[in-house]
């Protein structure tokens, strides 16, 4: 059984449909990239997959062994108030909150995990800094580290590399690739079509609905893919 199945999903805001008739499924171990032009409904679909947004019709079905707290998530925008007092360490650690369990405190293991993720993203030095005083890219890395802490089985990333410098971007794709190899299911919205085709197994091209759904290889050879990939070439 697939981890997540969408059946005839219609999504909209206040009666205006932005994406219709979406049916596809995410299997365990998939690396899905969701691509498409601005406003095509990618983030909306992701919010529906996360059950943050209820569909106008259709349904999102989780397999029996996927629970909400197996999920890691990085939103496209995290509206953090300008004056919120929280250290980077506190933010990252909050990805480890024992959601279902009764244990109220973080374990030593949780702290180790948070430290490791910060190390991985090169923000160990910022641990005690105030989150609101970081640069945009540094904040993005902290939120990524938090998402990695939360991800048990599946990781949802909505334009994760926005604001990251090229070096970190490359490192980041490698990191995700490694996590995928170790068995993590990845669902990523990305505008970096070349990286999407290079790293991910499957591509979902959105435009108010599904324009293309298949493997990256098939996508490259499809008409939709050829146009979209071609459109991003600089030469």
């Amino acid at each position, binding site marked *: 059984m697939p981890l997540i199945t969408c059946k005839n999903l219609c999504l909209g805001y206040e009666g205006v449909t932005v994406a219709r008739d979406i049916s596809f499924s995410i299997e365990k171990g998939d690396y899905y990239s969701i691509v498409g032009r601005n406003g095509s409904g990618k983030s909306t679909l992701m919010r529906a997959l996360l059950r943050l947004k209820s569909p106008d019709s259709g349904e999102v079905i989780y397999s029996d062994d996927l629970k909400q*707290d197996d999920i*890691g998530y990085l*939103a496209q925008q*995290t509206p953090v108030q300008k*004056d919120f*007092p929280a250290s980077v360490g506190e933010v990252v650690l909050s990805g480890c*909150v024992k959601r*279902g369990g009764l244990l109220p405190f973080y374990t030593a293991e949780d702290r180790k995990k948070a430290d490791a993720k910060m190390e991985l993203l090169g923000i160990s030095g910022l641990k005690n800094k105030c989150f609101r005083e970081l640069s945009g890219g540094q904040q993005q890395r902290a939120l990524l580290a938090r998402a990695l802490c*939360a991800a048990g089985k599946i990781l949802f990333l909505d334009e994760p590399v926005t604001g990251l410098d090229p070096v970190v971007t490359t490192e980041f794709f490698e990191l995700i690739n490694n996590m995928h190899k170790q068995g993590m299911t990845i669902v990523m919205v990305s505008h970096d079509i070349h990286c999407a085709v290079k790293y991910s197994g499957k591509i979902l091209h959105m435009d108010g609905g599904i324009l293309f759904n298949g493997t990256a290889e098939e996508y490259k050879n499809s008409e939709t893919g050829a146009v979209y990939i071609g459109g991003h070439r600089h030469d």
Partner: protein
Amino acid sequence: MIEYIQVMFSYTFILRALVVGVLVSLCASLLGVSLVLKRYSMIGDGLSHVGFGAIALATALNFAPMKFTVPVVVIAAVLLLRVSESSKIKGDSAIAMISTGALAVGILAASMTTGMNTDINSYLFGSILAMTKEDVVLSGTLSAIVIVLFLVFYNRIFAVTFDETFAAATGTRVRAYNMLIAVLTSITVVLGMRMMGALLISSLIIFPSLTAMRVCKRFKSVIFMSAVVSVLCFIAGLIISYFASTPTGATVVVINIGIYIIFALISRLLTRKI
């Protein structure tokens, strides 16, 4: 000076006020951080008006004041949260409607029973003479519950306060924790209301956390600082009001304002230097 304070605390009513006040200040300051950051401070204010209405009604109908007021305010908290979750703009006016409505009911009820005099005054502006022994026991129990629940759910409260979307996406029951915060707040408001006054209790929620946020940059230190500031301001206010014969609630609030200004200046100076 020490002797005078010793004499002061030999009065039972002052001791009771001290115990209840310190506990309520502690609860209010802990919850306040979350309420202020979630932009829920208006809910605290609304709840205190509902509390006033309920306590006046309870007196008019000869009910036990606390046993009647606590459930009423808890229900109001649940309603207010629902309303403010559903729509931001309408939520604002809905809170105003509920709180002024409750105020009106309370004034009517009180004027029918006592002829609108001292009692109303003590409800609105507080009185430290109001504490009976039972109140102290009840306050102690309830505030112990509030503090324990806050500590047990501290990590989740942080997660929900910092980023509701992430918390919801990763399986934290956001609505349940929002409800927990609202319910704990309503209990705190009722406990503190009779001493601090219905019109002043919400400042106990807002000021210490704002003060702490001026200088602290970690959530944990804000919580800690807020608790310390709140308790110390209350004790200072109680002592000063005793010697200066001023109303306790108002004195505590004025001291909180003073401390806020001092902290704001300190943070200005610190950031200027860098």
